[in-house]
């Protein structure tokens, strides 16, 4: 035990003094996720907010042919400007991106309109351009609304109820709660936490294995009167502490970041108070041992610091895999998912954010199975550490 503590203390001290390890544990993992997340959310909120209110410019060719239509469009925050000379010029202008959308009103519009025939207008747009597509959608819906309005007027004039145009009355009832809606956006945050957790211990895991070998400090260490198990467990313990620290910091920074996100404007109120932060830490904590063991294991296999870095970045991504599969297939939490590390933590976290009660059985399975996986990997690590090949 004394040896284990000595190894643990040395690894912590050694790595606290190493700027790279410290930066990845205390800054990269914990801050990168929430900051990126805050950025993405703020951007999407701003976009969705100003889309409906923003005045868009619409170059129109043949403005004299449909003055009423243009007046209607102006009432919907669409500003009419002079278009290119003719239709060909319009196609060109949209194709090269000079304009996003151009409305072409042919000369015979008025005539067709007067005859109650479908009067043709052309909306020139580039659907490959997403900004243009959003504008086109607003203009299209304005044109549809105008068309509907006229249809009603025409039917009324002929003594037919305009309701004949609405055989169905579609009414959607949304049962989602504000916390439930937030889970869509916050679904990816569980991965940020796992990422931060792994990131926090990554350099330490490399340093204690591949790094130690590359530096030539492993061989004298193994020649000391201590068992290799003690050395390895001390190293894994130190890695765990860095991972726990990184996880705690990232939960804390996320908690603070959420306060600055105008999520209520998107109709979301995530359940992410101080109590949830603590509960989230406890739910994710079993993953620490697993993460430390798997990183140490992979790093022990590698020949050099660089190679270890390469392989460990794969390990950083691995926990996303089950989360991704379940998200794509939109599967609901099931008992058997709780046996899968990273997936079970993800599903439990989402339920928590949605403010749904956690099933104690689910939590128990998640904790036990993740700890078990961690213990098995630690054991494999210890076996590997006893090989002669460890020295490379």
């Amino acid at each position, binding site marked *: 035990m004394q040896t284990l503590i000595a190894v643990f203390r040395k690894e912590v001290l050694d790595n606290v003094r190493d700027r790279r390890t410290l930066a990845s544990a205390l800054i990269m993992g914990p801050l990168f996720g929430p900051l990126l997340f805050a950025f993405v959310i703020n951007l999407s909120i701003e976009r969705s907010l100003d889309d409906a209110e923003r005045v868009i410019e619409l170059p129109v060719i043949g403005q004299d042919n449909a003055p009423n239509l243009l007046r209607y469009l102006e009432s919907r925050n669409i500003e009419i400007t002079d278009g290119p000379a003719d239709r060909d010029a319009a196609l060109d202008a949209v194709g090269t991106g000079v304009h996003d959308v151009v409305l072409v009103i042919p000369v015979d519009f008025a005539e067709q309109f007067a005859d109650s025939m479908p009067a043709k207008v052309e909306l020139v747009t580039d659907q490959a351009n997403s900004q243009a597509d959003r504008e086109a959608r607003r203009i299209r819906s304005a044109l549809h609304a105008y068309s509907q309005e006229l249809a009603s007027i025409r039917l009324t004039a002929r003594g037919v109820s305009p309701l004949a145009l609405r055989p169905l009355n579609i009414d959607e009832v949304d049962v989602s709660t504000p916390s439930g809606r937030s889970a869509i956006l916050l679904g990816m945050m569980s991965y940020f936490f796992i990422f931060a957790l792994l990131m926090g211990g990554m350099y330490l895991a490399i340093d204690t294995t591949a790094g130690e070998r590359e530096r*030539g400090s492993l061989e004298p260490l193994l020649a000391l*009167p201590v068992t290799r198990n003690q050395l390895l467990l001390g190293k894994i313990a130190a890695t765990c502490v860095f991972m726990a620290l990184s996880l705690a910091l990232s939960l804390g920074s996320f908690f603070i970041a959420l306060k600055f996100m105008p999520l209520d404007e998107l109709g979301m109120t995530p359940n992410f108070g101080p109590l949830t932060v603590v509960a989230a830490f406890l739910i994710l904590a079993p993953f620490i041992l697993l993460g430390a063991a798997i990183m140490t294991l992979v790093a022990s296999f590698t020949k050099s610091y660089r190679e270890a870095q390469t392989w460990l970045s794969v390990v950083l991504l691995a926990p996303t895999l089950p989360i991704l599969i379940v998200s794509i297939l939109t599967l609901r939490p099931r008992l058997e998912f709780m046996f899968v590390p990273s997936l079970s933590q993800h599903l439990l976290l989402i339920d928590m954010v949605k403010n749904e009660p956690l099933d104690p059985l689910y939590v128990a399975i998640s904790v036990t199975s993740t700890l078990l996986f961690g213990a098995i990997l630690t054991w494999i690590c210890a076996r590997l550490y006893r090989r002669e090949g460890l020295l490379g």
Partner: protein
Amino acid sequence: MIRVEDIHKSFGAVHAVRGVSFDAPDGKITGLLGPNGAGKSTTLRVLYTVLRPDEGRASIDGADVVTQSLEARRRIGALPHGAGLYPQLTARENIAYYARLCGLDAGSIDARVESIIHLLEIGDFADRRTKGFSQGQRTKVAIARSLVHDPQNIILDEPSNGLDVMATRSLRELILKLKEAGRCVLFSSHVMQEVAALCDDICIISHGQVAIDDSADGIRERTGCDDLEDAFVRAIRMVEPA
């Protein structure tokens, strides 16, 4: 007291050590001499228990290096070839770490580390981080670290590699001090002069086998060469490659 009896070690198809035997008694300096790739390092690695011999046995003060490896390690201070330090720790912290790992009790660690720093005359840079140390400084700290638990047997693998004249000289003085204190010192080298100047016993290894195991004078006599370098070359040729 180190005893090596007919050890063999292969790495894949390479038969690196083919039946090496020798004794390194207490109060004597034993030199393991041989060209690069002769099997010196492999033999020493078996002795400080990071490799297991395929055949044969070796013991440190009677403790078998395979079956009682922990006990054997307790009696050894080892300096592997190219041993590295922890760059973020000071020299003193590097030494104290080994003291703790060796189970020295917390109260005596500081005093022990201080005395070993004094013995190796590294007080001037003991409290600097070892990042950026010269090769000589690094070797001294690495030796200090391996002696911190006051082992009876000291194994040094090419300790003078990369050292300048002054550093080599103080290393030689240290080895003589250890001998006077009755320790068993075993070190390897590929420089005949260095070994001859220091060792009571020289074990010349070539192609994984012992060519000659004798004193410097004994080797001169048996090879019929007055010049040590000639004697070394002749001894090496006594062993046929596998």
